[in-house]
Each structure stands twice: as C-alpha cells, then as structure tokens.
C-alpha cells in the first residue's frame, strides 16, 4: 500500500512537471518527425541495394521480331489449331541465334543490368516522372530507351550500311535512340550510373554485332565475294583462275562457309564468335533468374511526411530505444528533488523499507516508460505509416524488456548522482554515448565490424536487434527477439544490483 501511495504521488508530480513528459514523449516524436522529413530516400535501404539504375522504357521493340514472336506464340499455343510440331518449329525459328531476340532490346539491357552484382534496376513509368525525380534530386540519372531503341540496336552492324554506335568513350546512346538524363547537382553519382549503363550496352550490342559479322563469313554473298577476290594458279598451266570458278554450286559455297565457321571455332575455342549475347560469346553461364530484380518505380512514402517509407521502420524503433533511456534523467531528477526538498528524510523516517520507497518511486516511471514506448510505436503506425510487422504482439515484449533495462540504468544513475547538475551531466552523456555506440543514432550497418561487436555491451543494441527482426524482417526470427528480451532483462537485473550497492537514501 505505501508503494502505491508513493507511486500516486510521483505520478502527480510527474504530470505537474512538464519536463519529463516533454523529454520522454514529445522529443522523440519531434526527432522522428524532423528526421523523417529531412532524410534522403536512401536511408533505411540495405547497402547492397544502393546502386540503383533507373530507366524509362519507351522502346516499341523491333517490329519484325514482334511479328516472329506473335507467330511463335500462335504456333506454340496448345489451344491453337496448329499442331504442336509446327509450334516447336516456329519457336526454334524465333530463338535462332542469327535473329534478334524475340523481346525488345531494352528488356535485354534491363536483364543484363539486373544480373549485374550490386545493381538494382528500377523502371520509371514515363519520361515526365523521370524528369520530375531528377528535378527534385531524388535520382541522379535516368536512362531512357526511346521508341526506336530495338530497331536501332538490330540495325547496329559493322557493315557499311549498318548503324555504328561505337565511339571513343563507348556507346553513342543517341545512335541507338537512348539518352541519359542527369541531375546537374549529382554529376558524380550520375557518371557512375552512366558507366554502368555503358558497360551493359557494350555487353549487349557488341556481341550482337560481332556475331552477325562472323556469320557473314559463311553466307553465300561473302563466299561469292571471296571467290572473286581470290585467284588460284592452276596446277598444270599455272594460269590463275578465280576461286569462284570452283564454287559454282550452292552446296559448294555452303560447304566452304561451313568450313570457315568450323575453322574459326577451332582457332578460337574460348569464344563463340557467332554468338549474339555476351554470355554466348564468352561461353560463360548466364545468371539464373535473370531480370527478376528489376522493380517498378514506387514513390517512397506519401505526402510531406513520406508516410509508410522504410525509414520509419528504422527511425521509430531507434528513437523509441534511445528515448526510453532518457528515463535516466526523469528518475534521477525524482530522487534528487526528493533529497533537495528534504522529503526523503520524511520518507525514511516513515515506517517504510528502502525497497518500498524505491518501488514506489520507480513504478510510475516504469509505467511512463511503457506508455512512451507504446505511444511512439502507435504514432509510428498512425502518423508515419510504419508497419508493425508480422508479429506485432512481440513488440510488447520488446517495449517491456527495454523499459526494464532503462529503469535499471536510471536507478544506477540516481544512486550515484547527488545533484540535478550531476543527473543532467551523467544522464545526458550516458544516454548519448550509449545511443551512439549502439546504432540508435545511425544504422549499425554503417559501423565497422569491430564497432558492431562493441555495441553489444549496450542494452540499446539488443533492443534494436529485436526491433529489426520484428519491423524489417518479413519473417522475423523470434528466437533472436526472445534472446534480446532476455538479455535486456539481465541488463535490468545487473543495473539494479549495482545500484543497490551504491544507493544511499540520505
């Protein structure tokens, strides 16, 4: 009963002193609000997702290829009237290496990009939105495939009448009806993206052109031309006659052409010079599941607050944890104020044990800490549109155990500090240092590995681990969450034991 009497009094005092409420409730909310608005869109993304190549696909595709694709679909369709063998023939025709791909060339480029390590492809719906994103510096560069991109790539060739897209620095985008739009304020980032695009275009266009060039070596027109160029002496007369005199029949020409291809293949066994793709040319394996990582552009969050943005999945728990430990100041001030006002003497002279006095003082602080945690998570959902993940009930366990650890630390500081100034200095330093070490102030992924290990000495880091599982992992590992809660409780026990050693209620 005396515990409840003291607790009621403390709650009354807390509600009459706005300091505690401002620090514990208003400040973290304001922090999250300000940082939520001011942080860039990269915040909260995993590091390996960061190099994002954004593009707009206006490519109409290569018309002949479309026609062939349509025919293939028609023949291959089980519901079609055509017999299955005919469909298979049509498919084989479509996929012949001497033909451009059945899909638009822009898709080939996108797939190649997506298969490149550390690259994420984002497809923006149209050029207007791309320009808007660049204007707002939300993207540093956007690659645009024009409507004739596929036709121009198909026409790219070493032949005199083909399009030559190459120049000193790589691929002339304009020749292929492509363009790289840049944000003039982020030129360095834009140039990185352009280099990535250049390499990909080279990987796509160059094999296509080489393959077609080497195929020409076996075509009758080339053999004809060769036949006229090469003159061979006759064995008896010594008269020189053109090679074409020996290659009169088409089957002879095909045989020579086939021989040329076979010789090339034997001479250059590491390459398939007639291939049309980089993987075939270099005889390397294609990535499995190519193109799966390309994602459609989605505006991160809505409105000025960017509600629902992934940043809140990090900001809200970070500041919920950090400000839970600001309880150190509140509890410290309660104890110091009791000493300063002399009322601690009356409490000690009353028929109460030290444990009852402590429990009475700490109980409302603990309730306040729980309320703070739940308030911030609720505000995170309602105001900032964050998700509570797939295991929202476990959030209660994390809030509870974090509050326990915060209470323990608060009691330890209160047992050491004798004046309000000491509480402010010890408390603020401790809270900020622990927050900085633990990853509350910046994501721990940005820390060096050694620092990540050191951060484990803080209760904050364990609380953040639990929140990360619950709020960022679609399938949270509940063993990690439960373990973190247990460690937080152990922190609380350790802090209370230490403070019992130091505490002197006089």
């Amino acid at each position, binding site marked *: *009963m*005396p515990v409840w*009497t*003291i607790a009621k*009094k403390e709650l*009354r*005092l807390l509600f*009459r*002193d706005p300091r505690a409420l401002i620090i514990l409730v208003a400040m973290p909310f304001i922090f999250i609000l300000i940082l939520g608005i001011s942080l860039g869109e990269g915040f909260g993304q995993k590091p390996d997702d960061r190099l994002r190549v954004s593009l707009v696909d206006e490519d109409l595709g290569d018309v002949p290829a479309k026609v062939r694709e349509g025919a293939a679909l028609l023949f291959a369709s089980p519901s079609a009237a055509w017999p299955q063998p005919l469909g298979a023939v049509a498919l084989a025709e479509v996929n012949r290496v001497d033909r451009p791909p059945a899909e638009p060339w822009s898709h080939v480029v996108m797939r190649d990009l997506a298969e490149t390590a550390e690259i994420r492809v984002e497809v923006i719906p149209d050029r207007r939105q791309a320009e808007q994103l660049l204007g707002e510096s939300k993207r540093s560069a956007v690659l645009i495939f024009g409507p004739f991109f596929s036709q121009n790539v198909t026409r790219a060739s070493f032949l005199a009448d083909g399009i030559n897209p190459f120049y000193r620095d790589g691929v002339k985008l304009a020749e292929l009806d492509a363009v790289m739009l840049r944000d003039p304020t982020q030129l360095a980032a834009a140039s990185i993206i352009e280099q990535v695009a250049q390499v990909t275009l080279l990987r796509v266009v160059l094999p296509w052109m080489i393959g077609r060039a080497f195929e020409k070596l076996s075509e009758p027109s080339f053999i004809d031309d060769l036949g006229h160029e090469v003159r061979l002496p006759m064995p008896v007369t010594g008269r020189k006659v053109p090679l074409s005199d020996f290659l009169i029949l088409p089957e002879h020409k095909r045989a020579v052409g086939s021989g040329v291809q076979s010789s090339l293949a034997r001479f250059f066994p590491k390459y398939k010079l007639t291939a049309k793709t980089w993987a075939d040319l270099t005889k390397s394996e294609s990535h499995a599941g190519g193109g799966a990582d390309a994602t459609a552009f989605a505006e991160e969050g809505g409105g000025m607050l960017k509600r629902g943005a992934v940043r809140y999945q990090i900001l809200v728990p970070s500041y919920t944890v950090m400000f839970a430990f600001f309880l150190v100041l509140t509890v410290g001030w309660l104890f110091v104020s009791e000493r300063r*006002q*002399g*009322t601690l*003497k*009356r*409490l*000690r*002279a*009353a*028929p*109460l*044990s030290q444990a009852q006095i402590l429990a009475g003082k700490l109980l409302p602080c603990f309730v306040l800490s729980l309320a703070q945690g739940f308030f911030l998570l609720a505000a995170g959902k309602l105001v900032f549109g964050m998700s509570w993940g797939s295991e929202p009930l476990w959030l209660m366990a994390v809030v509870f155990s974090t509050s326990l650890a915060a209470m323990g630390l608060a009691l330890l500081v209160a047992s050491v500090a004798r004046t309000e100034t000491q509480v402010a200095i010890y408390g603020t330093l401790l809270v900020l240092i622990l927050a900085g070490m633990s990853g509350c102030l910046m994501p721990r992924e940005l820390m060096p590995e050694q620092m990540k290990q050191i951060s484990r000495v803080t209760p904050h880091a364990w609380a953040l681990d639990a929140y990360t599982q619950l709020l960022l992992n679609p399938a949270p590992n509940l063993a990690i969450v439960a373990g973190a809660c247990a460690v937080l409780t152990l922190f609380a026990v350790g802090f209370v034991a230490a403070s019992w050693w130091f505490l002197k209620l*006089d």
Partner: protein
Amino acid sequence: MASPALEVVDVRKRYGPATALHGVSFEVAAGELFGLLGPNGAGKTTLLSIVSSLLEPTAGEVRIFGRRVTPRDRNLRRLVGIVPQELAIYSELTARENLHFFGELYGLHGASLRQRVAAILAAMGLEEPADRRVDTFSGGMKRRLNLGAALVHQPRLLLLDEPTTGVDPQSRNHVFEEVRRLNAAGVTIVYTSHYMEEVQALCPRIGIMDHGRLIACDTLPALLRQLQGLIRLRVPRMTPLLNERVQRLPHVTRAETKDGELLLECGDVKVTLVQLVSLLNELQLPLEGLETEEPNLERVFLHLTGRGLRD
C-alpha cells in the same frame, strides 16, 4: 513504572575521523517538553536523526517508550514524528495533498485521514490556502505545514529540529502555540534550537549541547541557579560606608568598585535591588545609574563553555 518516552544512552557518532557525538546520555519523560539547546554544529540534528532512525549510532543506543530503536523496527517509527530543520514538503503539491500523502504513508485512510488533515490544516491556520500549491506559500506558511506534516499520524513523540528557522514572528507564535497545545495534549516533545529565548520560553527542562557533548541537562531554574544576578550601580561618590553596607546585604555574594561603578553579584536580583534602594535612601545618596542582569541560558552557556551561543 512507565518507561521514559526517550532514553539516549551513551550515543556516539563518528563520520570518518570526525566525531559528531561524544557519548550523549539523557532521558525525556512521557509528556515532557524537553529543550535541546546548542549552537550550530553542536550535534543536535545528528542526535535527532539517530533518534528518528535516519542514522545509526556508532555506539550507544536509543529507546523510545522502552523499545530500542533499530532500522528493522519500522513500527516504532509510527510513534515518532519529526520536523526536520529544512523544509520537508512537496512544493508542487497542495498543502492538503502533502498532508494526505504523509498520512497515507502512516496507514491512515478514508474519512479518518480526511478529518485528521482538516484538523491539522485548522490548527496550522492553513485552511484557506489548503488547496494551493505549496510553492505559492510564504516562508511562514511552509514552516507551519512542515510542522503539520509531522503531526498527521498523531505521534506520541515529536522531534522538532529548529522549527522556527527563518519564520516571521506571527508564524513563530503559531508554532509555539501549537507546541504548547500538543504538549498539553500529552505529546512528548523534544525541541531543539540555537535560539536561547525559544527554549527558555517553552521548555521546563533543557539539555545544553556543545561540540557533540551534553554539557548540562536540568530544569530551567536549576540551570539558572548556577549563575548570579548582576547589578551595576552608579552614585555621585563612592563612600567606604556604602561599600561596607552593600557587602553585608543578604543575597550579595561579591561587590567590586570599578571605573566609578559598583558591581554586585547576587543570588536574587529583585530582592537585592529593593534592599539597595533603601540603603541609598538611608545614606542619602542619589542614584545616577542602574543596570541589572538576570541569569539566562545565554550566560549559562557562556559560563559553561567560555563562548557565546551565537559565536
């Protein structure tokens, strides 16, 4: 035979190398109003802290109504009320909330608590501002509330540590009246102060402390009897006859002429003064100047320690 309300037996207290109390012993009978007088730093507050179980003595023991004071005997604390030297009330709460809180700590509840709080507020003259926050109170009002907070649970032994420090005369009188009323109602009171006048006015029995020692402990008259009254007398001419007759007055213990003044030490100043006036009439000597000095606690302290109370 009933146990004394308070027994202090050879209580010693050390803080590291410093000794705050050097074996203090005294008793306070039930219903007594006992004064503990001494300058600041004499050890009065330390002694009261030990009595109220806020501090543990280094040696010796304290008994309250026959029960030894130990940190574990929390029920014994219900018998004691303490008014600390510094204010010990919550300035963010109202007077009523403060009294309610302290009452609840001692197990009072419901109607009895409300009645008790109302009675205390009335006794302390705080009915009108009862629901105002204490931080809006004057110093005197806070002092009265500070006293009231120790009374809510109706203690049998009340420890008052310099209860009038920094209060206005009106509030001081209020405190005095309440102390007398409580004592008349049977509450045993230990009243510490370094104001000699307060202790002398309130307490029939007094202990005098200095440097952690109880240097005297007796009733007020007995303490005062240790000293003689003083009379300084100035007449136009000092005659040998006057000198001789003065020394023969019954209560005069010493007579000395100094700088044209006659200085008399006597057991009873008032009787000696009457006799002295008749003597001067008889000798037809006009009185040019007269000063008297009755024995008081200030002089007792000076007599015992060689220092003034306020030195």
